[in-house]
């Protein structure tokens, strides 16, 4: 039972040599063995001591080794990131009440916990002095003992506070409450982190590009000051309710020559780490571009480029594997985006973009080249689609192609003009807004020859003049008024006078001729003539066919219209003119064709929120409201087409008899146009607010008597009120004034559809049962 007090000089080699022999012996044979081997003294004591406790020791280490996890224990990837504000591993946070809540720190009253970051807990707090809500970041209680952590926090704050940029979270104040703890007061934004948004799935491509551009702008500003974020990830991006992406948490930002995170805290969340971060090599701003590439990929596909069952496999993939191209995962991702991602995710920093500016330039290039219209053909054209997808005020902030100030101004004007034109000439089946809510007809006008054909056109002086005049016609900012439309018609006529063979001018003239206020019988016939001329001049130009298709639709000649619209789509499968075909299917009660076409629309123009909204509409028309709402939910993160999307969503809620939501949704967009008010009236009537509904009805009636407004809103509000007689009367008027909308075939109007009088409408529209 000797406890070898002092091991003393021991012949370890000898001990080792006999250990194997002696440990296998039964205890009662050991003495004999020791004698036979002449083992005595310290060595024998040692052996006996070890043998004596062999089994105890084994049990001891087995128990102790429980603190060392063995392989086979599940290691969920998510669990690795306790830093995210909503990270699952912070389960303990909910389990106890944070003692700081309710207390006051400096002049901040702490009201709740927002999340936990790499170096601190973030609270929601009220600034008592300035009476505003702030996000207050404090050192974690434990980390407060760690002066290094405090220093790091202060460096973060100084770094970020120096940055004043719309895409970077604003820092209000950096303070120390005591020697050991510090806080940062930041702007509190209403919105969601990109991480939260991504939990619902991938984003529309236009949104993905938009956010990427915004984040790149914020990073660019930081990089210009020598600050690297080093932890770009969705959890560190807040998207405010008005769609602005704010980069948060320069928690590990580093100013050159100030090394703060070498030891201990390692930057980045695994999935977003750059290879140089993984390998702990020196970092420069290009590490942020890599991480942004990961974020872009995730926004486009809903998946991370480097994903695996385990963190180790993820890291290995970052170092060594090429991700599956985003377009393979989501077919509608254009290869342009693949290329940008590939460049961002180049393993070697020197093969990436050199700076954020280069990236932004390429991103805006996508926005441009994705449009079928060549920029040189119609300067406004590229912007038109964007315009129709983006609120007017924000369009230039996010997607405007980089260009000189003068050109920008011109384009902006062009774009407003085109919007107005779009609003003005959208007469029949599809939504027309009085306020210029952009609708796809705008994109129709923007559609031009495929790029390869542009070169073929003879760019004579006359042709150039015609183009120029045509553009001016599109640019007329007064286009929304009758006089403006006349001026625009004049420009188109002048364009034709300059070069009578310039087909787009004829097509545009056709479209403007069926605009409200223009479409007296004679002009409608002229419109058809102009469209046919456009086709005759250039039968391979989609705009001519589209214009003729629209004119024929205007005249309820759907079969012929369909032929031409299909032809336009055939010529240019990417054309936004596909929208016409979709509306044709809608109004002729072909919901399945409509949905198929809408899906095709999205497939061909994945960045178009209008396309996505149309697909949602397709679901609605097929009675698939939850799918429609899911689609719109994704659209919610992009601004436009607000009224359209809101209208579809409200209809979905109405079909599901979710009146409060329906009313609330419709209210938000009711101001956008007169017809939307009719829908709001419908929702109110059904939701039990009949008086409000009647008030809307009366307003619409008064407007109609004054000769402003169309019949469609009155159809809708009367249907809502259950006054079917009136509804059918107004339906008749809407058929006459061309304000009839395809929605009439949808589930919202089931009451009307059940009425025998509805069959009359169907017959007039040429629909056979």
């Amino acid at each position, binding site marked *: 039972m000797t406890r070898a007090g002092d091991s003393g000089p021991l012949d*370890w080699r000898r001990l080792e040599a006999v250990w194997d022999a002696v440990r296998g012996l039964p205890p009662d044979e050991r003495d004999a063995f020791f004698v036979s081997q002449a083992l005595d003294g310290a060595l024998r004591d040692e052996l006996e001591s070890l043998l004596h406790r*062999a089994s105890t020791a084994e049990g001891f280490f087995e128990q102790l080794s429980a*603190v060392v*996890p063995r392989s086979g*224990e599940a290691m969920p990837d998510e669990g690795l990131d306790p830093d995210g504000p909503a990270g699952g591993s912070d389960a303990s946070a909910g389990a106890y009440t944070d003692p700081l809540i309710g207390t006051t720190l400096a002049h901040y009253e702490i009201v709740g916990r927002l999340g936990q970051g790499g170096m601190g807990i973030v609270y929601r707090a009220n600034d008592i002095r300035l009476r505003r809500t702030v996000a207050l970041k404090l050192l974690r209680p434990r980390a407060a003992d760690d002066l290094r952590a405090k220093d790091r926090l202060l460096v973060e704050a100084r770094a970020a506070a120096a940055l004043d940029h719309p895409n970077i979270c604003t820092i209000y104040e950096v303070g120390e409450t005591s020697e050991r703890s510090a806080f940062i007061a930041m702007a509190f934004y209403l919105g969601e982190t990109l991480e939260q948004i991504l939990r619902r799935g991938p984003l529309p491509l236009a949104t993905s590009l938009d956010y990427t551009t915004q984040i790149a702008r914020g990073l660019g500003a930081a990089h210009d000051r020598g600050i690297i974020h080093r932890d770009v990830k969705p959890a560190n991006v807040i998207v405010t309710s008005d769609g602005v992406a704010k980069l948060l948490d320069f928690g590990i930002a580093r100013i050159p020559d100030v090394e703060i995170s070498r030891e201990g805290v390692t930057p980045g969340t695994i999935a977003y780490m750059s290879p140089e971060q993984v390998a702990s090599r020196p970092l420069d701003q290009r590490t942020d571009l890599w991480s942004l590439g990961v974020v872009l990929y995730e926004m486009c596909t809903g998946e991370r480029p480097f994903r695996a069952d*385990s963190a180790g496999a993820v890291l290995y993939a970052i170092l060594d594997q090429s991700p599956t191209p985003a377009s393979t995962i989501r077919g509608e991702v254009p290869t342009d985006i693949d290329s940008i991602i590939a460049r961002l995710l180049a393993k070697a920093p020197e093969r990436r973009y050199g700076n954020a500016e280069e990236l932004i330039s390429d991103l805006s290039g996508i926005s441009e080249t994705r449009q079928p219209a060549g920029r040189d053909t119609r300067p406004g054209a590229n912007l038109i689609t964007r315009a129709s997808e983006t609120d007017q005020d924000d369009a230039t902030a996010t997607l405007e192609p980089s260009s000189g100030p003068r050109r920008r101004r011109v384009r902006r004007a062009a774009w407003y003009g085109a919007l107005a034109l779009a609003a003005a000439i959208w007469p029949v089946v599809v939504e027309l807004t009085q306020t210029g809510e952009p609708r796809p007809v705008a994109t129709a006008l923007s559609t031009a020859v495929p790029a390869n054909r542009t070169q073929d056109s003879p760019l004579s002086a006359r042709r150039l003049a015609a183009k120029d005049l045509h553009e001016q016609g599109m640019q007329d900012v007064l286009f929304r008024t009758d006089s403006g439309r006349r001026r625009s018609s004049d420009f188109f006529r002048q364009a034709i006078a300059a070069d009578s063979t310039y087909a787009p001018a004829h097509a545009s003239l056709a479209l403007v001729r069926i605009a409200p206020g223009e479409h007296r019988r004679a002009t409608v016939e002229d419109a058809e003539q102009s469209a046919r001329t456009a086709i005759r001049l250039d039968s391979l130009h989609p705009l001519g066919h589209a214009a003729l298709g629209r004119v024929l639709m205007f005249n309820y000649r759907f079969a012929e219209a369909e032929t031409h619209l299909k032809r336009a789509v055939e010529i240019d499968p990417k054309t936004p003119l596909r929208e016409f075909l979709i509306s044709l299917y809608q109004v002729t009660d072909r919901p399945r064709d409509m949905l198929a076409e809408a899906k095709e629309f999205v497939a061909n123009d994945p960045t178009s929120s209008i396309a996505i909204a149309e697909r949602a509409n397709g679901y609605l028309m097929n009675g698939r409201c939850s799918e429609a709402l899911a689609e719109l939910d994704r659209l919610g993160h992009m601004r436009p087409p607000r009224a359209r999307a809101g209208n579809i969503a409200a209809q979905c809620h109405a079909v599901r008899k979710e009146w409060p939501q329906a009313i609330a949704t419709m209210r938000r967009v009711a101001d956008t146009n007169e017809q939307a008010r009719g829908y709001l009236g419908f929702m109110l009537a059904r939701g039990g607010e009949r008086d409000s509904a009647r008030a809307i009805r009366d307003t619409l009636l008064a407007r109609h008597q004054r000769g402003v407004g169309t019949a469609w809103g009155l159809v809708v509000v009367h249907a809502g009120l259950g006054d079917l007689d009136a509804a059918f009367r107004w339906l008749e008027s809407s058929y006459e004034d061309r304000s009839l909308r395809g929605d009439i075939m949808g589930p919202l109007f089931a009451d009307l559809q059940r009425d025998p009088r509805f069959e009359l409408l169907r017959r007039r529209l040429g629909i056979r049962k």
Partner: protein
Amino acid sequence: MRQGDPNALGRLFTLVYDKLAEIAHTEGRRHPGAETLTTTGLVHEAFITLFGSESRDFNDRSHFMAVAATAMRRILIANARRRSAAKRGDGQRPATFEEVERALATEPGFVTAKADALLALDRALERLHGHSERHSRIVDCRFFGGMSIEETAAALGISPATVKRDWSMAQPWLHREIQKDLG
């Protein structure tokens, strides 16, 4: 012991990293909020220890595994030290051996007594290393690396029988040293 197959490196990389991650994750789970290092940080601390130095040849499996196991030991010890220090700051003495044994038998979590035992183990391993580097490395692999007899043998380039023998001897030796240390 060189592996020509590039995928072998990938698998190995994954294996080692995930072991590191498991440790860190479990640590994080056992006492959430008590760490100054995040789980990710813990893992990367070890990871950088493993991969930060350019001189290392990761195709050398034995070297790789041995370094990995040692890195894991370092993480755990650093962690235990923080934990123990936090307690001692409250005026508590390190646990006695008896307390350690009781904790092992009755406390499922990573209580301070176990942290103290780990620290004592670390010190004992230093002494063991003085006698035999091979023994201490085997303990690193078996205990801290969670590697099997065969894995350890392969990693260190010795026979499984040697691993078995040395491991069976190192345990009682360390046990005794820890008991002596903690008193």
